[in-house]
């Protein structure tokens, strides 16, 4: 009868590499105006096949959330984002969920339905990941001001209240921003109870 002998004990495979050791983000404060850099644009398809261009959201406060269906901490944030979308949509806010699932809509479509996600979700790509500084850990989120600049970013799960405080501060920022494609048009921030949303998504 044939037998096998393991010729040499193999060294233990270290499953986590040094490149994967980015620290989780601490509760952050919004970057000052001077520190904010423009978010890279992307054009990705949503579940209906419609193109979602980040620049179309200029004039809104946007939370760009990189996530995946296999990511437990991402799942924990989803109810918060659903709430934010409901609560602040009419004030000029939007959540954009960029899924990093390898199998795309096959996993994401049923997940979006089962979790009753009410914000736009797209399938991300390696290119978009690189544009945002090589997304290695999920969730990773960027909060953009009305001028499309990155006002804060979070790697890993942070407190809901941190997001909420940032969103509210940015929504209440009285600064005005130019609306692309409208010449000299000016987009007003929150003024009293009302917000001008212009021709926004």
């Amino acid at each position, binding site marked *: 009868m*044939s*037998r*096998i*002998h*393991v*010729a*040499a*004990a*193999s*060294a*233990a*495979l*270290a*499953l*986590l590499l040094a490149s*994967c*050791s980015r620290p*989780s983000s601490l509760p952050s404060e919004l970057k000052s105006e001077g520190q904010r850099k423009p978010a890279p644009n992307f054009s990705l398809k949503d579940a209906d096949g419609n193109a979602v261009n980040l620049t179309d959201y200029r004039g809104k406060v946007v939370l760009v959330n990189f996530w*995946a*269906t*296999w*990511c*437990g*901490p*991402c*799942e*924990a944030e989803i109810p918060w984002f659903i709430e934010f979308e409901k609560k602040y949509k009419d004030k000029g806010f939007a959540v954009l969920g960029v899924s*990093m699932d*390898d199998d795309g809509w096959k*996993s994401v479509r049923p*997940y979006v339905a089962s979790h009753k996600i009410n914000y736009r979700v797209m399938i991300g790509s390696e290119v978009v990941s690189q544009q945002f500084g090589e997304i*290695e*850990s*999920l*969730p990773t989120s960027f909060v953009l001001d009305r001028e499309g600049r990155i006002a804060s970013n979070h*790697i*890993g*799960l*942070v407190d809901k209240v941190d997001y909420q405080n940032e969103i509210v501060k940015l929504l209440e920022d009285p600064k005005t921003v130019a609306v692309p494609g409208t010449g000299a048009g000016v987009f007003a921030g929150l003024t009293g109870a009302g917000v001008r949303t212009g021709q926004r998504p």
Partner: protein
Amino acid sequence: MLPLDLRPGYHVNSNTPSDEYLIPLRLTWNPGPLEASGFAFPQPRMEKYSFSEKPLSVFTGDFQIVTHFKVPANAAAGPATLTGKLRYQACNNSMCLAPKTLDVTQQVEIVK
């Protein structure tokens, strides 16, 4: 036997994760001189994490996966190299890393 070593604070989903969306730990061997006939994973731990309402079926720390191989009758005696792939997806208490697939190699001696 494939020994594995996880960085402290991290876990990988077990081979039988507790949620359909979670990616299981999976070891596969490429066709070669031996045929894998079964795997023995350690008993998973049911761990509760701050991001999850329910405990998750995970592996942490050092552990081993044992593969049972059949030796075909026509297998040549002598040294042989087995190659395969290990797919895993790791998280810590606040974030997850993308799924990875590692090449694994095992040197064996087939004795007649």
